[in-house]
């Protein structure tokens, strides 16, 4: 099909585009000082940035007293998790590191960059003075595990299947290890805390809300009136109430529905509440994706004989979800940050620990340091998520349009 309309002789050598001739001065003039008002704007902005940076840097390095963070570091990370059982948390971390390492070796790309960030975080923690020597040993092991996973991963037979299964069972395994469930000495969920608890609640809410959200979205577009109106009612009620009320209801109401003597502990209750809450928003995101698809895609899937399940799995969902990755990740990030509300219903997540720590008379008035620190922790994780989302969008954009 190479039908060129050009006659032979007119075919010229393709020309390179002209090189940019702007030097540094040229660039400055073009981008910062190209008009009188822009020049003023540039000068003002530079001044503002200078004072903000100067103030922050002076505060961070001279005024702030970081002892409140460093001396409570373990609390921030795992709350009051029993100290002589901490090896269980470390083992869980090791397992996650292994999965990161294996995935990095197999799929490269985004997951590799994330693994590098994880490794750097470990590395920083092995250097800083306030981490105990046992902690440093575990961190070193974790670094080794990531590296080992990275190099062994691609050579393993059936590596992809093994790694995926690993990710799949990782969550139940972690819950099992942390709780003990009779095999190890039990560590009650009410003393789980800090970053550990924050991560657990968000991971459950995000992963759990995904399938529920898809089902709700499909239900909302269903032709069967009962299913349709059930889903609409659910979504609209949940979206109409604040998350904090959902948490309160989960704490107070779920026990009322359970048979006598049967108890779900408060962490699980909060996880259920967060999952059901996020699911309603996920459903609306997914529905947006479904609506962005052309009707022809549904028709073509029917016309080649696919049944509804296959057509959803191969044709509709892959395209619908891809179209709304930014919204889904946005929802996940906001859920991750909203887990801070569990502090109000009595769980001591990262923010809960911050409240406790700053109430300690020993560190009176050091709340600024505490909040800056937890803000940094939230930012690192949230930014990793949004970074992955951007990369994912790019890599999935193959062949589109």
């Amino acid at each position, binding site marked *: *099909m190479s039908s060129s309309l050009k006659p032979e002789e007119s075919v010229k050598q393709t020309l390179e585009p002209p090189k940019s001739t702007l030097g540094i001065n040229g660039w400055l003039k073009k981008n910062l000082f190209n008009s009188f008002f822009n020049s003023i704007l540039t000068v003002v902005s530079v001044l503002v940035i200078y004072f903000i940076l100067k103030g922050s840097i002076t505060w961070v390095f001279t005024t702030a007293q970081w002892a409140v963070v460093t001396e409570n570091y373990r609390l921030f990370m795992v709350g009051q998790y029993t100290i002589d059982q901490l090896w269980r948390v470390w083992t869980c971390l090791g397992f996650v590191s292994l999965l990161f390492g294996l995935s990095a070796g197999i799929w490269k790309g985004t997951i590799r960059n994330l693994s590098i960030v994880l490794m750097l975080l470990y590395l920083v923690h092995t250097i800083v003075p306030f981490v105990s020597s046992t902690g440093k040993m575990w961190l070193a092991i974790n670094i080794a595990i990531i590296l080992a996973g990275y190099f062994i991963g691609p050579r393993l037979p059936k590596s992809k299947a093994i790694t995926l299964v690993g990710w799949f069972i990782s969550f139940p395994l972690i819950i099992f290890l942390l709780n003990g469930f009779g095999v190890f000495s039990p560590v009650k969920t009410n003393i789980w805390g800090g970053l550990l608890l924050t991560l657990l609640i968000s991971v459950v809410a995000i992963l759990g809300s995904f399938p529920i959200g898809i089902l709700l979205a499909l239900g909302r577009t269903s032709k069967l009136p009962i299913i349709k109106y059930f889903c609409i009612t659910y979504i609209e009620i949940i979206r109409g109430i604040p998350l904090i009320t959902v948490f309160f209801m989960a704490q107070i109401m779920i026990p009322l529905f359970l048979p006598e003597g049967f108890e779900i502990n408060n962490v699980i209750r909060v996880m259920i509440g967060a999952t059901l809450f996020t699911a309603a928003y996920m459903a609306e995101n997914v529905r947006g994706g479904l609506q962005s698809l*052309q009707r*022809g*895609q549904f*028709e*073509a*899937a*029917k*016309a*080649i*004989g*696919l*049944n509804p399940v*296959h057509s959803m799995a*191969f*044709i509709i969902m*892959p*395209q619908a979800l*891809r179209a709304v990755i930014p919204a889904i990740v946005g929802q996940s990030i906001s859920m991750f940050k909203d887990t801070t509300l569990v502090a109000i219903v009595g769980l001591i997540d990262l923010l809960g620990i911050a409240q406790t720590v700053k109430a300690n008379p020993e560190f009176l008035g050091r709340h600024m340091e505490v909040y800056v620190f937890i803000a940094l922790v939230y930012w690192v994780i949230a930014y990793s998520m949004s970074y992955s989302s951007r990369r994912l969008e790019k890599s*999935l954009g*193959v*062949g*589109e*349009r």
Partner: protein
Amino acid sequence: MAQTKLQVTKAKEGEEIIACDKVNKWFGSLHVLKDVSLSVTKGEVVVILGPSGSGKSTFIRTINALEEIQKGQIHIDGINLSHDVKNIEAIRRETGMVFQQFNLFPHMTILKNITLAPIWVRKKPKAEAEKEAFELLERVGIPEQAHKYPGQLSGGQQQRVAIARALAMQPEIMLFDEPTSALDPEMIKEVLDVMKELARSGITMLVVTHEMGFAREVADRIVLFDEGEIIETGTPTELFDNPQHERTKLFLSQIL
């Protein structure tokens, strides 16, 4: 040529494969199909002509149940097209459809587009499905594009892939819903050539089109639709050279 082909298929197969009896459809209060009855025998190539909005696209879409009918009966290869999901799925396996907008799956390579249904609906082994996909791509003249995505192909190439995708299910009947209407003029011929080759191979075809040359050359029978009704049917010679009905004459005079 159309004449000789007609004799061959009639002698060999000839039995009725599509039977539409007094099909009626409404969009809201708009009566889009009015008592449409049509019988197509196996191996026949039927071209449906008519002005836009005459219901010809809606009609062809009722044959594989993309549009529901409210009154009347449709039988495909003896299967009653009722509301029964099993029957509808059976009929969709027997019919391939080519759309005006191609409707390829943009997130899959050409090869995946073609092999998806054979693998999941016909339960063919992957290797066999891929081998057949390459043969089909060969047949529509673009074997070298197998690993590209639909967005990287020209309109004509995409439509030929769409034809290959429909053929991969080895259907008894091929439905074409204005297959060349969304194409740039220079690409129409490559698609029509593929369709002509198909017609010669003896598959039953129902084609909605505005390509008069194609209709005259390939059709065994032409059906003229207007305002939801069949106005006239006949061989190309009968219909083009000696139209009986006033509305047929009007339509032809506007087009030719």
